[in-house]
């Protein structure tokens, strides 16, 4: 592949590989299933990002800002919720 063709073809192929038009498959008027969404994480928000890593970091930062006091369960709390969960099987 010559450099010129490569310069054109590679972006096109990448585009075809990762960007699919979002369509709807409607079996009935009230039953629609999303079809062919983009596989890139940026697709959901239609944002053009240089890379998905920064998108993930944005989510992390946003989550920290929205829930500044978020903490994992303590050992006692974990034992408690797990005991409760397993008690549902009795």
């Amino acid at each position: 592949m010559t450099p010129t063709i490569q310069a054109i073809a590679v972006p096109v192929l990448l585009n075809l590989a990762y960007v699919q038009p979002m369509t709807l498959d409607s079996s009935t008027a009230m039953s629609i299933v999303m079809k062919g969404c983009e596989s890139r994480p940026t697709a959901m928000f239609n944002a053009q990002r240089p890379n998905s890593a920064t998108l993930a970091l944005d989510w992390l930062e946003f989550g920290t800002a929205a829930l500044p006091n978020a903490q994992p369960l303590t050992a006692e709390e974990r034992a408690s919720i797990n005991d409760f969960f397993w008690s549902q099987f009795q």
Partner: protein
Amino acid sequence: MIGDFSRYATIIPEEHQPALQRNLTRIPDFSWLLSEPHPSLERLQGDLIKKFPTVFLDDSATPRSRDFTVMLLNNTCDLPDERLDFVTAAPVVDFQKYLEFERPRRTAESLRAYADSIRRNDKTELLYLPKFDEFENGALVLLHMVCSVSARVYKRALTAQKRIASFTQTGFYFSLIKLTTHIARAEATEVVRS
């Protein structure tokens, strides 16, 4: 609380920012999280489905199966038939029943503080949901207890109209915050990988 919301314009569309910002200031009121099942879109990430078969391995690796209300964790774009062989489901339990279970283990004050932290969604493993369906006092999605179930089971559940709630638009963003905070928060600085 979040100050300059425009910093997050790349992950939250501008038109959704005012509603999300307004709703985040209402915490611990989470009445904005859920709605009736979406009237036209049949398969959405976060949908809540009742009487859904689940299975978990106990301490002796024995499979334990039971029907739970579940929250579907799969991305909406992975839910069409040709993208789907298994769904990932997180069980949902009754919040009030859990508090009753916990009551003998704590003082009244300790229980109240614990319940408040759960209601504020400050526990990363637990997604607190407000009242819906049979859960009169709210419910907890156990994000640390997920399982995989055949997509055929999921499709049969949809056919049987077992879908009981969907996340609202702003509620969906919040569910992503919870999933991110639980699964993808930063590792400790002591973790050094080769």
